[in-house]
């Protein structure tokens, strides 16, 4: 047993700060060699100095027996790779188990392992369990000292997919022996290989946009032409500028080829100073009289109308799984809470130079968007992404005051370039 501890300790010392003397010696003797051979498994130890050990079959708990059997083999292989142990052959182990099994009623697993170890004349027995709790895989391995019957070490690895079994076993063995964990590689591979990756992303991006098909009509229909809005008009385009970069939060999940997320976003625009070419015709009522009007141009000041669209929606996309970059494209839709404010009551009040209660409207709207982007995976379950997003936000609200009250509808067309940062969750 003392030999065991000495051997393991010396192996662990390669990676521990406390073993400064050993590391210093290594540094002096072979700096280049140490750089070239970061994996301690590459060093050989004479077979005669290895510790005799046996690995009992890993017990399946809620997983397939075949999966547990495979993990057993992976465990043996990984233990052999350490060059610390001489593992007893499976046939020899099975024969002893078959012969002794009837004698072990009432013994704990550790006690049974000790009994088997004594018969097999080994120093160490490895016993393990592979199970699932709420779809989360757990691998637990214990190292039993046959001489004392004590569990000298144990290690657990959790939340890994079937594809990552090899990495999980490798990490368990590393934990048992105090070796440095090759975490980065596992994390990246886990994120890439996982059946389902769940993520949260924050993004922000600047955009270009304009209001198209700005459709206005009076809310009143009892004018000179009964049944029709007393006036109506259409502007093909109204120029607008973003007030602040669009921001958003996305929560979602992806599989190998596709993914989807739910998104909360905010986008704000305001109109710029311009002459709007309108096509307005109809009647207006002033001082209880009807006047026929035609309007072809409306001059509005800068920030005449401010728009804030708070979106709650979802996206669906297909992507190409890749270790380097993951291009994707998709489509999304959102329910919008649109807030439109202005120092003026509305376009009709401005056109007629009539004062009114400043516009302050909150209404429901909708948005559709296309997504074209690239995700770039980073270590430690993070990623960044760049996305180009053409979108259309639909606004419909009532503005104006007095008999100039009008129903406004327009589409905010935006072309957004987004930079985002994401975290992956299992």
């Amino acid at each position, binding site marked *: 047993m003392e030999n065991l501890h000495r051997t393991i300790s010396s192996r662990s010392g390669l990676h521990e700060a406390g073993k400064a003397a050993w590391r210093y010696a290594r540094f002096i003797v072979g700096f280049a060699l140490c750089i070239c051979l970061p994996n301690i498994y590459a060093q050989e130890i004479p077979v005669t100095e290895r510790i005799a050990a046996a690995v009992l079959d890993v017990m399946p708990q809620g997983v397939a027996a075949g999966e547990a059997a495979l993990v057993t083999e992976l465990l043996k292989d990984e233990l052999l790779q350490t060059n610390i142990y001489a593992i007893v052959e499976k046939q020899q182990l099975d024969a002893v188990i078959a012969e002794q099994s009837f004698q072990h009623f009432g013994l704990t697993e550790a006690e049974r392992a000790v009994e088997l170890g004594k018969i097999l004349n080994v120093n160490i027995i490895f016993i393990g369990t592979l199970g699932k*709790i*709420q779809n989360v895989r757990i691998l637990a391995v214990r190292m039993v000292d046959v001489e004392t019957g004590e569990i000298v070490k144990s290690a657990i690895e959790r939340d890994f997919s079937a594809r990552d079994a090899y990495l999980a076993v490798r990490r368990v063995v590393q934990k048992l022996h105090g070796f440095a964990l090759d975490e980065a590689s596992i994390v990246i591979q886990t994120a890439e290989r996982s059946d389902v990756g*769940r*993520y*949260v992303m924050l993004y922000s991006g600047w955009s270009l946009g304009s209001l198209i098909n700005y459709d206005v009509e009076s*809310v*009143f*229909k*009892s*004018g000179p032409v*009964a049944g029709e809005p*007393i006036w109506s008009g259409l502007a093909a385009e109204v120029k607008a500028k973003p007030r602040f970069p669009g921001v958003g939060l996305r*929560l*979602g*999940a992806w599989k190998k080829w596709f993914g989807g997320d*739910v998104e*909360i976003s905010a986008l704000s625009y305001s109109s710029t100073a311009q002459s709007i070419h309108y096509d307005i015709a109809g009647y207006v*009522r002033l001082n209880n009289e009807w006047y026929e009007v035609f309007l072809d141009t409306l001059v509005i000041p800068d920030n005449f109308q401010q728009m804030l669209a708070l979106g*709650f929606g*979802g996206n669906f996309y297909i992507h190409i799984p890749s270790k380097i970059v993951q291009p994707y494209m998709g489509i999304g839709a959102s*329910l919008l*809470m649109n807030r439109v404010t202005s120092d003026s009551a509305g376009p009709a009040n401005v056109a007629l130079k009539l004062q009114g209660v400043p516009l302050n409207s*909150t*209404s*429901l709207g909708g948005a559709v968007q296309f997504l074209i982007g690239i995700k770039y995976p980073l270590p430690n379950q993070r990623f960044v992404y760049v996305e180009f997003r053409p979108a259309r936000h639909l606004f419909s609200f*009532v503005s104006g*005051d*007095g*008999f100039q*009250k009008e*129903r406004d509808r327009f589409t905010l067309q935006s072309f957004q370039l987004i930079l985002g940062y994401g*975290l992956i*969750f299992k």
Partner: protein
Amino acid sequence: MLHIKMILVVALMANFGFAQADSTRNLAQAKAALSRRTAARNLFINTVILDVYFAPYSFIFGVALGGQSIVGGKSLNRANAVWATTSIAGMALSLLASNALTLEMREMLKGVGPEMGANDTRIYRIFSGGLSTASILDFQAESVFLGENGKPQWEAGAAEVKTTISFPAVGRRIGVSGHRWGGELETSIIAHHTNKQTVYYDATGFIRVPGLGEVPLALNDIEIPDRFLMIHSLFMGANVFVWLPKVKVEPYVGLGTGVLINSVQSQYPGPANLIQEDGSLALDATTVGFALRGLLGFRVDISDRKFVFAEFRPARYYYTYESGTRNLAENDRFTLQIFEVQMGLGFYIN
């Protein structure tokens, strides 16, 4: 009539008190007889039955008491407070009765039985409150009388009428929360009233005015006072939601729909008859409507049994009722567009 109602409530509560004692006595037998699934089902059924009785009863009772306050010359704020107190008291009575009748079920669900696994759904209760901003959209009114062309004698409409919240929304829910989804039954109340404003409306047709004959209607405006309409609603419905990936908090998104019991009260008979009847409730309509809403919120567990949540819910409540008197009687309908933020405390039963 009021006294009779109060006696009824007291009698019912006494009955539930006996039920509680009885249910405690038989707890052991009930535990043996009920499976966890049955207990959960019974818990829901009992809660629904009690809510269906108590919530509308107390809501209508509250509306009646509030109306009596107005008739008695009390302030509109006081009338609103009376309504809110009565409605909340009714919901509390429902909760007490529910607690009494479902004691054995909740006791059974509290324990971890052999049927319970890590993937089992959790049953919870929520008490919530919230603030909202709302406005009336597409207010449409039409005469109840038909003209010679078979259409209403007159029609009028206003695109938007501004409102203010009169009392924070209050509600309670019981629901199940699974690994990926959840569903809940909700009972809640809201109260809004119209602001003082000039409403510009569109009108066609004519009104028959004694002495003047048929007076044609046209585009016009009307100055309405504060609380021209006092709107109270009881929502009884269901929400369903799906969980989003957990990020420290548990976000979710969902939809809800339900039946509304709507009360629209006013000291004026109706928009077409804007002569205030001081010290009286000229309009007091109670009707049934429906509601649609979206949900976006998140939960945070504060212990094994408790959680807090915040939720944003855009909603649309639909109202139809009859107002006005005599030849000015009219059918009104409008949509109350609400953007509400709710927060609350939840308790897991199992």
